[in-house]
Structure formats: structure tokens, C-alpha cells
């Protein structure tokens, strides 16, 4: 017996692809946005607030990238280079793709953008780690494959990392020099405990 032809299942409306995206740097906090091949963060600090300072790790130690020079600064963080932005996140990040740090002065504030990406499917392999403030040795490295999981999952996971780190002196002890790393802080200041807030303020 031949029945009625089956009707195709009703399909959901197909969402139009995103053609472009716009965000004001002056909006604070913008948080992280994943747009195409980039994870983008934006934020700002008034002149009364201590600035964000980008730090890069190299074999000779830690390089603080100059800031508040009165003109814009654009710095490329090459893939494979651990970096840290004090007062923004209290650990170090290493990507498998380049990142770009942009600082622009305007209206009495410093405006910042961090753009991670440029290659399709990245950032994918991203590591979080700590650097000893006594000898600059790296330790506590953990890598995360985040290709299909969006960057925000990596950032959210780092808070658990930071809290475990703060709770355990052994985890904070440098395997090279034995120095103890002070307690630190995650990415989102709103989530800070009192201890994390104090660490963020120290910078």
C-alpha cells in the first residue's frame, strides 16, 4: 500500500550569517567576544586607576611592555610566547596563534584591546601557567584543546585553576628556586574573593 508521501520535517529558520560586529572600546567591561577567527577582549582604565601592564616571558626574564606613553601602542605577542596582563588576570597564557595588544589614550583614560587569532580554528591549543616572581621559571603549565569549545570555556576554567593554586602552597612553590608564588586572581574581577581582590590590587 502506498501511503501519503511524508512531509519534510518543518525546518527552523536559518539564521543569517554574521557579516560584521561592532563594539565600543570605551564600554567597560566588554569581556571576551569570540568573533570568527578572533577572541577579542576590550577594557579601559581611568587615569586615577593603575594601568593594565602587558608582560611577556622570555628566556632572560620578564619584559614589561611600556604603557601610558601618551600615544597609541600596538604590540604583537608571537604565538608560543607566555604573557600576562597584571590586574587583568593573575596567571600566564600561551597560545598557538599570535595575539595583539593595543593601548590607546583618549578622554583621560587608557583603552585596551587584546585580539587573539588570525588563523582559522585558533586559538585552539591554549596553555595556562605560572611564572616564579623570584627566578622567572615557568611552572604549573596546563594545556587545553579548545578548538570547538569557544574561548570562554578556557577562561572560565582558569578560575578553578587559580583557586586550587591559591589553596595549595605546594602548587605555588617554584620547582626551580623554591620561592613561593603569592596568591593570585582569575580573569573576572567580579568573581574575586577578598584574597584574590587583594592580589589584583597589588598587580
Amino acid at each position, binding site marked *: 500500500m502506498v501511503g501519503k508521501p511524508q512531509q519534510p520535517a518543518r525546518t527552523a529558520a536559518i539564521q543569517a550569517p554574521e557579516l560584521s560586529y*561592532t563594539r565600543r572600546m570605551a564600554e567597560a567591561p566588554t569581556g571576551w567576544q569570540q568573533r570568527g577567527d578572533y577572541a577579542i577582549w576590550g577594557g579601559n582604565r581611568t587615569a586615577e586607576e593603575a594601568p593594565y601592564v602587558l608582560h611577556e616571558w622570555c628566556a632572560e626574564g620578564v619584559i614589561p611592555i611600556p604603557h601610558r606613553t601618551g600615544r597609541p601602542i600596538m604590540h604583537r605577542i608571537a604565538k608560543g610566547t607566555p604573557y600576562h596582563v597584571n590586574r587583568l588576570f593573575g596567571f600566564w597564557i600561551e597560545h598557538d596563534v599570535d595575539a595583539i595588544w593595543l593601548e590607546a589614550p583618549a578622554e583621560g583614560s587608557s583603552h585596551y584591546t587584546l585580539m587573539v587569532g*588570525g588563523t582559522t580554528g585558533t586559538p585552539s591549543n591554549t596553555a595556562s601557567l605560572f611564572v616564579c*616572581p623570584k627566578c622567572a621559571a615557568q611552572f604549573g603549565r596546563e594545556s587545553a584543546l579548545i578548538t570547538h569549545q569557544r574561548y570562554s570555556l578556557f577562561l572560565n576554567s582558569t578560575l578553578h585553576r587559580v583557586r586550587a593554586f591559591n589553596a595549595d602552597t605546594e602548587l605555588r612553590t617554584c620547582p626551580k628556586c623554591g620561592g613561593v608564588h603569592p596568591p593570585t586572581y582569575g580573569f573576572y574581577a567580579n568573581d574575586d574573593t577578598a584574597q584574590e581582590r587583594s592580589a589584583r590590587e597589588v598587580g
Partner: protein
Amino acid sequence: MLYSDVYVKEPIDKIAEDWDFMNEKVLPRFFGFRPVGDNVYGIRAITHETQRTLGSEKHTPMDMAKNRRNFEIGPQGVVIVPRTPLTIHVTRHGTPHRTEFLFGYWHVNDKDEIIIPLPATDTTPPHLVIVMGHPKDNETDRIACYCHQCGSLVFLRELVTGTIGFQRFFQWEHETVREYNSDPKFRTCWDCGHINPVAYTAFPTRDSPEERESRMKW
């Protein structure tokens, strides 16, 4: 600061002289587009009040006009994209886009582009920063021309920059624009018959008289 005991003592300029792309000594490398690592960078000063002075000697070759408008093509047709200072704009791959008076064709590429206008400071003019992914493998850049009258695609050329390298782009751009301008058949709309104006490259100093005339208009 936490890491001040382990700071590298050497000045950063000695470690990497190009650590800041906006530095006045480094910036001229980015007047066009320059591939560095995973991205291609362009930095333009916005120093012209209008398009009338584009290409004049006292400015760098790709300085921009303050009165320019920026366009994208989406499902609703052509839209104007404001360039508000300190605004991050991402033009997603595949979206045709164009900047009035700067390049007289539509750029359609396979990489996302981030565009950030920066305001003037006491010592620097306003700038436009462009960051886009470095094309790889079979990823391409395209030059497209759409009919000014009806919006139909009238001309399209493609360069596989992922294979050939992005540094070849501007030479190809020049050749492609000249090809389009060489014969009215390329500019004549197959659909409505409208004859479109000639295109122009991103370098005003290379303009032929008719390209210059076109640059002043659209």
C-alpha cells in the same frame, strides 16, 4: 609589581626594535599591508580633510580622508559602516567591503578583518588600524565590482593569496583595476545595461586622470 625582580634589564628597543607597530619609526612599514606572523597589518593616518588632497606629496601614500564613508554589502544591500573612534569593528570573511576614496572596488576576502579607528593624541593624528588573518592554503582575496544602478555583480577576479602570498596583493590589485578600466564591456552591467565608473587602486599616486576623477566622486 609582582615581577619587577625578574624584569629584563635591557631596554625593550634593544630586544625588539619593532615591538610597537605604532612607533613613528616602525609605522611606515604598515602604510600598505604587511604580513607579520599570523596576521596582516595595515595602519593608516587620517590626515586629509577631504578626498581632494589625496595623493599630495606632504602626506604618506595611503593616508585617508576624514570625509570617507565605509560600506559593506549584506542581505539588505549596501550599508554604511560608521568608523567611530575607539570602536572595534570586525568585517567577517566573505563580506564585500569598500572605503570611499581609498579603493574603488569591493574587497571580498576569506579572512576576518578587525578595524579600529584611533583618535588623535597630542603628538599623533587619528589613525585607522586594520588587522586581518594571513591567508593560508586555498584562501583568497577578491576584487569585485557591482553595478551602481542595480547591484548586480559585473566583475570579479580572485588571487589565491594563501598560496601566492599576500605581499603580491597590491601588484595584482593594480593589474586588476587596470583590466577592469581597460574595456567598457567589463563595466557594463549585464543586467540593466548601466555603464559603471572606472575603478581605482589604493594608491592615489598611481591614478590615471580618469581614475583620479573617479576617486573624487565615489
